[in-house]
């Protein structure tokens, strides 16, 4: 084995990730099977007649055994075919794609603002620790986090859309929309999301760096006469990066999979709303497809966090 041990380690992690994804696919499949309620009944809702139900059930082929349907599904997924939605007979892949793009677009801009901001604020808090600045940053970010998302959304909407009219309250975006209009449309939901995730990352940055700062080698560095920011940059940050990346990844994952409420409030056509709609209709193929995509996002981001942790820790790199 001539490969560098780090490469082997990373390859292992990736292989594990793939295996995990497979396990998740089984779990999601089983989970959606357990769900009470009947696809046909949910499609037709309160207005369903038993006859219509029976007809639909037969038509959807809900009578095959579960494992056959699992492998049929898995085979489809591997060839890029996510199947057809039961409820509206639309191809799932083509329906999901624009929504996934929208979700990623919103998540990207929310992350582009919140991650650097959180780390910067965290560093500033460390620099002025326990002072007025630190306390203010802490207090404000905590208040933002402790408010329910819809509350933040409504308040932003009330001031910036209804009162001031700076931004639209409705964030409906579509393909042909010019980039600047699109940015204007997502201004409010992106701000809301930033406020929601900021504090968590900020506090972890602060705590992790402070933790490292108390180690003996920082004292040595201090004695060498390095300035505080140099110490943070050269010594503290690299060693604090594992927990920070962990929390950042958690929040990135949240930005992708957890934004249903913000989507509903701002009428943003993303994945969350799509999932909820289909869950309530028991549209199993869609729930499975979206569940799998969400799982892949989670696993992928966690993989990144793990790899960064391995790369960042010199001792892990040369594990005895």
């Amino acid at each position: 084995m001539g490969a560098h041990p780090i490469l082997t380690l990373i390859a292992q992690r990736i292989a594990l990730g793939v295996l995990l994804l497979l396990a998740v696919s089984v779990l999601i499949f089983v989970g959606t099977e357990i769900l009470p309620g009947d696809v046909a009944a949910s499609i037709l809702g309160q207005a369903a007649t038993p006859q219509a139900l029976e007809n639909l059930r037969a038509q959807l082929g809900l009578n095959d055994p579960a494992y056959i349907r699992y492998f049929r599904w898995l085979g489809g997924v591997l060839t890029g075919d996510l199947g057809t939605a039961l409820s509206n007979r639309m191809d799932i892949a083509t329906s999901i794609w624009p929504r996934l793009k929208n979700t990623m677009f919103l998540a990207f801009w929310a992350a582009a603002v919140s991650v650097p901001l959180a780390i910067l604020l965290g560093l500033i808090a460390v620099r002025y620790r326990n002072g007025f600045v630190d306390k203010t940053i802490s207090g404000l970010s905590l208040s933002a986090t402790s408010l329910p998302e819809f509350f933040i959304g409504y308040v932003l909407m009330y001031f910036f859309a209804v009162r001031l009219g700076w931004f639209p309250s409705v964030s409906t975006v579509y393909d042909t929309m010019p980039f600047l209009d699109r940015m204007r449309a997502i201004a409010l939901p992106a701000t809301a999301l930033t406020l929601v995730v900021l504090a968590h990352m900020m506090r972890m940055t602060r705590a992790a760096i402070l933790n490292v700062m108390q180690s003996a080698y920082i004292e040595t560095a201090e004695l060498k006469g390095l300035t505080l920011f140099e110490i943070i940059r050269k010594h503290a940050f690299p060693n604090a990066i594992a927990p920070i990346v962990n929390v950042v990844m958690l929040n990135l994952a949240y930005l992708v999979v957890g934004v249903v409420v913000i989507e509903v409030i701002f009428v943003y056509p993303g994945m969350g709303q799509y999932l909820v709609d289909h869950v309530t209709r028991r549209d199993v193929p869609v729930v499975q497809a979206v569940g799998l995509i969400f799982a892949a996002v989670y696993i992928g981001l966690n993989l990144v966090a793990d790899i960064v942790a391995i790369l960042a820790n010199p001792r892990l790199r040369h594990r005895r």
Partner: protein
Amino acid sequence: MTMFKRMPIGAAIGLIVTVVLLFVAIFAPWIAPYPGSRVLGGVWEPASAQYWLGTDNLGRDLLSRMIYGARITVFIAVSATALAFTLGAILGFMAAVLGGWFDTLMSRFVDLMMSIPTLIFGLVVLSVLPSTIPTLIIVMGLLDSTRVYRLSRAVAVDINVMDFVEAAKLRGEGTRWIIFREILPNALSPLVSELGLRFIYAVLFLSALSFLGLGVQPPNADWGGMVRENREGIVFGIPAALIPAGAIAALAISVNLVADWLLNRTSDLKGGRGNA
């Protein structure tokens, strides 16, 4: 008691608010001016001498509901967070110290749990378990413990390869000693910082679960649920939703102020130079 004397003003405020809330929560029936569920007046009446905080979306006294709500909110959030941290931290530390197959198995299992969207998870749980408060606490605790696990493990892996831990291992200390005597004290800082936030997330998660139907059963309500009940008034400037939201924020800041203070205390304990 010396620790209280050197207490900074922020922490003191935090502690006082937290203690007052706990007091209110415990003695709710004796403090509340009205029963929490009785309809007394019109919908969304403004604050008055009779109803200090006005009435809510059904014409119930908001103050009384806040007081009863404190009880439910604090109790469930504290229990769920405690469960999450006990379980998550211990398993995370064990994974870091033991490594090998235990680590791999636990970590991938946690990944598995986390990668299933909460909505689907919640629905499946709902379909199997009855919607009671113990169920609620266990579900919230378990879901949250996965997050705590990842963090604890990440922190502990770094500590585990430090010299003093290896020294302890060479001394022949057992796993239990290493986890509780070597790793725990050194991992406390990020964990306590996380604790404050997780507690708040538990409060918020509770209201999200109410939405799924797994929350607190009416006519009782937690604070998050009360914000939700009164949310339609927000864009018209009705304060009924602002009050529970403000209370959650106050609770969040207080708990975290106390956590920060404890953080400094613990860095004192292990000989760092933290306390300014």
